[in-house]
């Protein structure tokens, strides 16, 4: 590509030879991983990949557009329940359920986003919290109506005679989906939409003075983010072969919010790091709990809650830039995307 104009080079995602080499190494490592990892490690990798889709979606909304949402668990649940209901009621295949989940996500994003036209900051967070409870209620109501006390079982998706069930196959599917989410995020950030969102985040009045259609871009942020989240929820349903409304508690929302805080607000790489951190954290606690007296070993989840609360507090108090902020300060993340100044208000 020696003939590339300077503009084409500027716009290329991998502009320099070094970037291309690094990308090739990372890709090779990601492809090789399922062949060297133990089944347990592979399951962890799958969980991280799945979480990274939701974390990227929330980062687009909160980190880029500055719109606060406490609705992630509700949206994940909505996606998962779309799969559950469609599979159970009409036996729909995945190529029906996934687009349906995406469509429902976009519609819910519009609904979740409508309050943002009148409300800012805290009040917006509260209205999305209210919608969370509505979605969870509807899911619980469906379970109660259809006398499913425990949840909905879902078969693995299949194409022709081949069924997607092995961890290794799931790894590549989830890798493809999270790569797609990453590509969407990176590209949105670089386009007019991303710049409009950043203007909104800093000050929406100035943004409107600059000719940015504030309402349109706010709703768009909610819809893009909610669509990605709902698709992640649908994948979650197939991945676990099971949907139960208990999985979509407020704690799940807090975990996703923690991912973007701990990773580093306003950074795409931060969303990925944060997803890894939050998913692996309970396993680290479990490993540590093995050395503690049995009294604590019996309530590992409580220990996990407490430790998670402490870690979140420490990041908020001491390192608002998150893991990316730490990396940048120590110099290893020089080329990472720039973080914004902490948390948008």
């Amino acid at each position, binding site marked *: 590509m020696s003939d590339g104009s300077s503009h084409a080079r500027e716009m290329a995602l991998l502009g320099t030879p070094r970037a291309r080499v690094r990308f090739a190494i990372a890709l090779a490592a990601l492809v090789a991983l399922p062949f060297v990892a133990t089944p347990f490690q592979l399951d962890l990798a799958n969980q991280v990949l799945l979480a990274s889709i939701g974390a990227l979606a929330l980062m687009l909304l909160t980190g880029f557009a500055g719109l*606060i949402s406490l609705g992630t668990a509700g949206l994940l649940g909505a996606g998962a329940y779309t799969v559950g209901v469609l599979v159970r009621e009409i036996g729909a295949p995945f190529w029906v359920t996934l687009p349906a989940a995406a469509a429902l996500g976009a519609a819910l994003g519009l609904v979740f986003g409508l*309050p943002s036209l*009148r*409300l*800012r*900051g*805290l*009040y917006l*967070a*509260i*209205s999305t*919290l*209210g*919608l969370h*409870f*509505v979605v*969870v*209620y509807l899911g*619980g*109501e469906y379970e*109660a109506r259809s006398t499913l006390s425990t949840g909905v079982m879902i078969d693995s998706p299949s194409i022709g005679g081949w069924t997607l069930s092995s961890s290794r196959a799931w790894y590549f599917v989830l890798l493809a989906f999270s790569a797609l989410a990453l590509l969407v995020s990176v590209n949105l950030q670089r386009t007019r939409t991303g710049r409009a969102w950043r203007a909104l985040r800093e000050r929406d009045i100035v943004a409107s003075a600059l000719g940015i259609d504030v309402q349109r871009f706010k709703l768009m942020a909610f819809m893009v983010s909610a669509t990605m989240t709902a698709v992640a929820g649908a994948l979650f349903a197939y991945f676990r072969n099971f949907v139960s409304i208990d999985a979509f508690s407020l*704690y799940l929302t*807090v975990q996703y*919010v*923690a991912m973007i*805080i701990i990773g580093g607000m306003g950074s795409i790489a931060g969303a990925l790091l944060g997803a890894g951190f939050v998913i692996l954290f309970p396993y680290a606690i479990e490993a540590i709990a093995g050395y503690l007296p049995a009294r*604590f070993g019996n*309530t590992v*989840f*409580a*220990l*996990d*809650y*407490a*430790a*998670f*609360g*402490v870690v*979140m*507090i420490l990041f*908020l*108090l001491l390192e*608002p830039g998150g893991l990316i902020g730490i990396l940048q300060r120590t110099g290893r993340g020089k080329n990472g995307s720039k973080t914004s100044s*902490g*948390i*948008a*208000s």
Partner: protein
Amino acid sequence: MSLQLVANVVVLTAIYALVSTGYVLVYRVSRVLNLAHGELMMVGAYLLVATAGMFSGDPLLALLLAAICGLVMGIVVYVVLMRWMTGEAVLAAVLITIALGILLRGLSILIWTTQQFYPAAIFGWHNPPVKVAPGVQISAASLAMVVLTIVVYGGLFIFLQFTRWGVRMRAAGQNPLLAEQRGIRLHGVYAFAWGLSTFTAALAGMLLALDSGVESTMATIGLKAFPAALVGGLDSLLGAAIGSAIVAAAEIAAIQYVNPLLSDVVPFVVLLIVLAIRPWGLFGSREQLDRV
């Protein structure tokens, strides 16, 4: 609507009203939304379990001691945690309270497990039903909750309106800069507001525990009181009381006439309606909206 139903609404109103004072106090003074309030209420209830174990023969002493611990708890939370968030983005402060809530939830399970405790049983008290009108019964602890809520509202009104610290608190809420220049120590006022907030929350938690026991899910009740505070207007005590009545009536009606599963969602539906029509609440001041 039977009289018994009215009595149920009054009791639930009292619960929400007592808990929502804490949201209002902290928000009015420092513009912080405390999403750990439900957990703090639950810890208040557990404090009673702890003091009841020590002074099972003297319920009043146990109650008093637990209430004082509740007051101290709020001051400690402010001094250790929230003090550092003064002047930070409002959202960061809210996220800190969410993290605190998770921490408290984990700690309380580590200390008290997930088992249900009945402090009333430790005192050997049976919480007898009381006849408040012909054919209408509520438990003694519920009656105490209603009375206590009225007392607390009266006390807070006198405190905020007429006492020196109350005036300071209102001044700090209205204009922190001016208040500080007039020699009011903001950190002291904020810490005191947090203490009062957890004090009232602990009272509510203790009475709920006396009525129906305490377990790790009690924090949900505290979160459901939040819509009540917001419906009334986050910076108005009178609004909190009326918002509590609205939310409680809607909730009881939904449980009675529609579907018991609606219990958890109705307060938030009311909240969404209010946010759509009148985001600053029934009695809140309108200027607050742009500050958040």
